[in-house]
């Protein structure tokens, strides 16, 4: 169920000739589409407009008027470019680690464990189980496990693995760790879906044709599991880039680990500098759209849903 949503759709799409043409289609589509136009598209337009606003003359703190203040973007970039770079850096790192951690897991569940469907089901349940506990609480759990007074950290310090005054929380390490952990299910499930359908006869053919296990993996398995890799990468990178929970001070972050998300939140909810927050959001969205358009070009729009 969650699997279906979090993976690229494997449903065979019926050809257009098998479909009916009917006004009923419009009736079914309209309510949902209208809703999304109203509450998804318009807000994005709103955001775009807000990003160009200027502080109202003689207005209150938090009051803005419509304008075409392009400087908002320049301001935002000069002020926050470290955060921008950092966000994408963290997101890329988390995506990379999530990929190399999840791939063997997905391979085991999807390929090696095929003979034991019960084991497969159990393993999959364990992969999505973290979703059933609040995102915040599981991040908090790691914070406490990595906190200075925790059993783990004190032991590591006692064994001289860590310097006595070192911190684990509040570092890039803990933020990336948190991001990786939280998005492993997002990476594992699409990988699993693709690998589950991998025909092992291709692997046998590869071996029959003198390819060592390493070569079979590189030349056959990886290319054939590419759809899952791409889907998992997208599903991990996009939310990771915009995340701010992991990086916030109450959780795994510190003063030097603030990401775009934190800054947007601060601008919107604390500083009430809506144009700045909006400009940052648009910037973030644009970068994401570049990635998405790459993906769409590669796989076509039928595969999207």
């Amino acid at each position: 169920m969650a699997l279906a949503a979090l993976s690229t759709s494997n449903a065979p799409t019926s050809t257009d000739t098998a479909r009916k043409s009917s006004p009923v289609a419009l009736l079914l589509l309209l309510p949902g589409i209208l809703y999304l136009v109203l509450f998804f598209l318009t807000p994005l337009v709103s955001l775009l407009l807000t990003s160009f606003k200027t502080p109202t003359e003689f207005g209150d703190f938090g009051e803005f008027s419509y304008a075409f203040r392009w400087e908002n973007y320049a301001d935002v970039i000069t002020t926050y470019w470290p955060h921008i770079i950092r966000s994408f850096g963290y997101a890329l790192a988390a995506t990379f680690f999530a990929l190399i951690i999840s791939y063997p897991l997905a391979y085991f569940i999807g390929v090696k464990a095929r003979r034991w469907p019960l084991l497969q089901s159990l393993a999959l349940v364990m992969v999505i189980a973290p979703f059933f506990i609040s995102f915040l609480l599981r991040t908090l759990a790691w914070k406490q496990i990595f906190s200075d007074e925790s059993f783990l950290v004190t032991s590591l310090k006692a064994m001289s693995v860590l310097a006595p005054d070192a911190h684990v929380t509040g570092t890039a390490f803990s933020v990336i760790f948190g991001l990786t952990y939280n998005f492993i299910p997002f990476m594992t499930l699409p990988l699993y879906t693709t690998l589950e359908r991998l025909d092992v006869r291709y692997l046998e053919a590869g071996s029959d044709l003198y390819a060592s296990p390493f070569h079979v993996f590189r030349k056959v398995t990886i290319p054939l599991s590419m759809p899952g890799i791409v889907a998992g990468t997208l599903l991990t990178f996009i939310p990771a880039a915009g995340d701010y929970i992991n990086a916030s001070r109450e959780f795994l972050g510190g003063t030097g680990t603030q990401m775009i998300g934190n800054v947007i939140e601060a601008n919107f909810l604390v500083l009430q500098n809506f144009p700045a927050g909006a400009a940052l959001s648009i910037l973030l969205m644009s970068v994401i759209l570049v990635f998405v358009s790459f993906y769409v070009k590669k796989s076509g729009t039928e595969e999207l849903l």
Partner: protein
Amino acid sequence: MKHSIGKWVLPAYSALALLILMIPIGYTFVYSFNDSLKSNIVWRSFTFDKWLNVCNVQNGAVCEAFGNSIFIAVVSTVAATTLGTMIAIAMVRYRFKFRSQLSLFLFLPMATPEVVLGAGLAAQFLSIGVPKDMTTIILAHTMFSISFVVVAVKARVATLDPALEEAGRDLYGSALQVFLRITFPLLLPGILAAALLSFALSFDDFIITNFNSGSVSTFPKYIWISAARGIPAEANVVASAVFILALVIVVTVQVSGAARAKRLAKMN
């Protein structure tokens, strides 16, 4: 064919990985039994108190937050599932122009980072002058769930044999009857799965909610706010209870599915 030791590397790694995935869950569960005072960081002693008196702390703040979250999740799930199912049926069964554009349009909410969605809605509500309260939260949750519902139901609709509906038309005549008696029951598992997904997404949502809730408390928001001064163990209790319930549901679905498959196999 692997060398006999090499055969165990992958299963061992997988077991380890899955175990590490479970750590925060175990941690949360264990600490729900902690006889904590204000903050639940240091282990004091074991108690069932928190489980038995969940709603006592902070004048029932935890339970109020939980109740709000449930209410919001239920309403937004009903709305999102209805709208999304209609779209899914239309996309699979009917022919219309702008199909690929629609696919792209439905994909975008899933591809947009939550900060952007939340900020956008907040900006919009601000511009219109709508105050942020329960309604705005529900509207927001419905919005981001629709696309997920479409994906989940679409997968199910595509597995339906159109021949069944044609046979139904033979028997029943009216399209409505066919839908009620044949299509809908067959779609039900997919719709339920989509509803479950939508419910889970809404219940656990924080970022979008944070931007659009004003002073209304939801469970994730409560945790965020309490994180600064100390999260009471009662929150762990609620989270653990939800986890156990969700686990039971998922396992039941899997087991009953497997049992049904077995029965069908026996009949053949």
